[in-house]
Structures are given as structure tokens and as C-alpha cells.
């Protein structure tokens, strides 16, 4: 197993660490962080697979897609955080409402 | 060429104890204000010596100027952040540590 594939494996693990936290963690800010980690994992798989080219230099297409992805990640992070603040302002809680609670 | 490489290696090697001191200080010093003090070693001398070592090897004066700019920017940011964090720590009511 060479180094790029090792990074790709790390990316897969990052994605699932994030996915797990997205389900298990309660606080909204933590959920946004978890989604960011998931995104980083996906990017790492992309970049690692692009790095396999060897002497010819890396594949530029995944690089361009990840650049696009990074900017989209920032915008969803920003929107998610503003939504979290709004949820806290309207419900008084920084988490999603549970079944039986007001707003559920 | 040989002398230049040797000098560069020596300078960069000398930078390591300063980074080590900064990290150890961050870990071992008793409070925020002491740790601030440790940090400046890495900012000023650690990075400064590495930049100097790379400048000795630089191909052109533009590359050397870019390295110098990076160091100056880190110095500026480091000094400002140290001031801001110390000010904020004092405001939130932390008292500087004393040998009692």
C-alpha cells in the first residue's frame, strides 16, 4: 500500500468519524463541525486518488473539483451556523427540538 | 556553494532549540502570561533563523525578499496577538502568576 492510498484510507475514516458525530452529537455547532470533517474526508480521498499519477504530475481535475468543494463547504458552514443561531434565538436551545417538545 | 549550504544548515539547526523552547514553555509554564513569553522565542528567533537559513540559499533577491516579508508578517501578527490575548486575560480577571 503506497502513501496516496494510505491518505485515501484516512479520508474514508475521517468521513465516517464525521458521520458518526453528526448523528450522535446534540449541539448544532458540533453538527456543523462534523459535516466539515466529513467534507474534509471526501476531499482527502479525491486528492489522494489524484496524487497517484506519479511522474506526470497530479491529475488537475479532482484538484479543481476540491477547490470548488472547499468554497461550497464554507458557504454551507456559514449558512448552517446562522441557522443554528436562529434556532437558538427562536427556541432558546442550541439543538434541534425533540419529539414532544415545542417546535418538533 | 559548499560554505553557503553549511551556513544555511547551521542556521536552520540553531532554530530548532528555539522552537523546542517555545513548545516546552507552552506546555510547562504556569499561566497565560508566562506562556506568552515562551511563544515569542518561536516567533522571533525560531522562524527568523529558518528564514535566514533559507535566504542564504535563495536563488534571487526576490525570493529572499519574500522570505523576509513572511517573517516580518509573522512578527507583526505575533506581537499583536500576544498583546490582545494578554489584555483579554487581564480583563477576564486572571491574575499573573507569582512565585509564592
Amino acid at each position, binding site marked *: 500500500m503506497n*502513501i496516496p*492510498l*494510505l*491518505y*485515501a484510507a*484516512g479520508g474514508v*475514516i*475521517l468521513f*465516517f*468519524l464525521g*458521520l*458518526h*458525530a453528526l*448523528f450522535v*452529537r446534540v*449541539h448544532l*455547532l*458540533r453538527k456543523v*463541525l462534523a459535516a466539515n*470533517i466529513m467534507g*474534509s474526508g471526501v*476531499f*482527502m480521498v479525491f*486528492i489522494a*486518488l*489524484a496524487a*497517484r499519477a*506519479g511522474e*506526470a*504530475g497530479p*491529475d*488537475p*481535475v479532482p*484538484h*479543481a473539483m*476540491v*477547490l*470548488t468543494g*472547499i*468554497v461550497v463547504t*464554507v*458557504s*454551507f458552514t*456559514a*449558512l448552517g451556523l*446562522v*441557522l*443554528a*443561531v436562529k434556532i*437558538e*434565538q427562536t427556541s432558546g436551545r*442550541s439543538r434541534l427540538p*425533540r419529539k414532544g417538545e415545542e417546535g418538533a | 556553494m559548499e560554505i553557503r549550504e553549511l551556513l544555511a544548515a547551521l542556521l536552520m539547526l540553531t532554530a530548532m532549540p528555539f522552537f523546542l523552547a517555545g513548545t516546552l514553555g507552552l506546555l510547562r509554564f504556569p499561566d497565560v502570561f508566562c506562556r506568552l513569553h515562551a511563544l515569542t522565542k518561536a516567533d522571533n528567533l525560531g522562524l527568523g533563523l529558518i528564514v535566514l537559513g533559507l535566504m542564504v540559499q535563495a536563488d534571487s533577491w526576490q525570493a529572499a525578499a519574500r522570505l523576509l516579508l513572511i517573517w516580518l508578517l509573522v512578527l*507583526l*501578527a505575533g*506581537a*499583536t496577538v500576544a*498583546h*490582545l490575548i494578554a*489584555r483579554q486575560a487581564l480583563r477576564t480577571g486572571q491574575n499573573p502568576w507569582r512565585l509564592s
Partner: protein
Amino acid sequence: MTLLSALFDLLLLATLLWLAWRLLASADLFKAVVLFIAFSLLLALAWVRLNAPDVALAEAAIGAGITGALLMVALGRLSPEDACPHRLHPTLGQRLSAPLLISLAVPAAVAILLSSLLTLPETAAGLAPLVTSHLAQSEVAHPVTAVLLNFRGYDTLLEVAVLVLAVLGIWCLGEAQVLTLPGSVSPVLLGMTRVLLPVLVLTGGYLLWLGGHAPGGAFQAGALLAAGAVLWLFAGQMLSSRWSDLPLRLLLLLGFQVFLATAAVPVLQGNLLLAYPPGWAKTMILLVETLLAGSIAAVLAAAVIGGRPACAPQSFPPAGQADEEKQQ
């Protein structure tokens, strides 16, 4: 060389995984945010090791600048984690889903993906030869820029649309609140901002120009300029209502609109979408990139403020003594 670089890679990867686990599991929110900032720093190093300097530049600008500021602003507005009690009884679905996910689904999915990764060839050129052979057609010397703005221009076009949509969403959620807390601005901070802002703008322009032939381009420049704008805002500065009304909205949209126009004009002439007229590609790409950088900077800075400009003639974000909205 190979042993040292392999050690470096292993240490970096292990630290990244450990950081991700710690920041998602730690009890303290502020600690999680700080660990996330460290995570994105190390991620930039990983991109460097994977031979992706463009991505490393973008990660440096966004991870060190914008995301940190966004998280800090949100942290100031959200209540801490201990205010949301864990002792509240989880529903049956939640109680079941978490262990199930851990014990079955996640390891299974990881195993399937890892085993399929192992079957992949260790070297594969991918689309790199195709891009290299058509690089002259794109009239840009840097392959990533050629892919972003020429070969796969529709990706970038839609991405800018997503950015505009994100700002629309943020502005729909409410008016901007006070950004900086009351209290005097340190003169040291003002002094640093005064020195740093011109250098930031200059470096943004440099990265934009660099994108034609080397790693760099509109995203990196835009993120850098946005970080400059955020620094300016945190130094207690505000946009007067004269600027935050029409000029700001125009700036937010300009990149998208001009890009859309350059994409649509060839269609009207019976050509393909985004087919630049031959000989004009470089000029068009440079124009689009410059406007995009400005728009991206405005979008990201507006996202940090987190709300639309108020209707009443006020500055953006509003100046205030204490944020009363937060108390409610």
C-alpha cells in the same frame, strides 16, 4: 528521503485522525473549535504532501481566516453545550440508532470502502494526460485554472450560484446583529490592521495574477480578500448605509452575472455553453476571475456578518453598545 517523508506522512495522518476524533468527542465547545483550527492547518500540510498546492493555498486562506472567524462569531452567539442537557431522555429511535450505527453500519461501510480502495491501481494518470494535451486550447498555462474556468467551467458557474444562494439564505434569516462586542478597540489592533490590509490586497492581486500560470487564482484571492475584510470588521469598522445598500448587492452579484453572461452569449450565437471565442479565452478568463474574486470576498465577508443590512439608515453591521437581541 523516502523513509523521512513516509514518517512525516504517517505522523501527519495519525494526528489528523486523532484531532478529528478529539474535536468531535471533546466536552468543551471552545476546545472543539480551537482543535478544528489546528485540524485545518494540518490539513493544508496534507494537501502539500499530496502534491496539491492549489488546494493547500485555498485551505490556508479559508481554514486560517474565514472558518475560524465564522466559528468564533457563532460561538459568541450560541449558548454553551452544558446548557443542552444530556440527561434529557433520548427517543427510542435515537437510543437505537446510535449503537447500531457504531456497531454495524460504520465498520461495515469503512471495510467495504477500504477493500475497494485496495483494489485500485497504485498509479493511475486519470485525466491528467487529456488536460495536458488540450492545455494550449484553453489559453491558460496552469492546468487547474484551465479545468476550473474552461474545461469544467459549469462547475465554477454553479458554485458561484451556490455562494449567492447561501448569502440569500443568510439574509432571509434576519437582520445583521452587532458583530463586535462593546469595549474599546485596542490601538495595537488598529495599527496592525492598517499595516496588514494593503499587504492583503496586494497579495490577493498577486495570487489572482499567479493563477494564469501557477497555483493560485480567483478562489484563493477571494478568500484572502475576505479575510482582510473580516479583519477590518473586527477592528470595529463598518460599512456606511450608502455602501451597504446598492453597491454591496452589486458586488455580491457581479461575479455570477458576468460569468453567466460570458457563458450564455455563445449559446445565443448557436455555439456551446461557455465556449469562449477563440483567441479571447485568456482575456475572458482573467476578467471573470477578477470579478469572481471580488464577489467571493464580498460573499464570505457578508457570511461572517450573518444577516442582511437593516432597512433603517444604519451602518452594516450595526454599531451597538450591547446586543439586546442576544438576551432574548
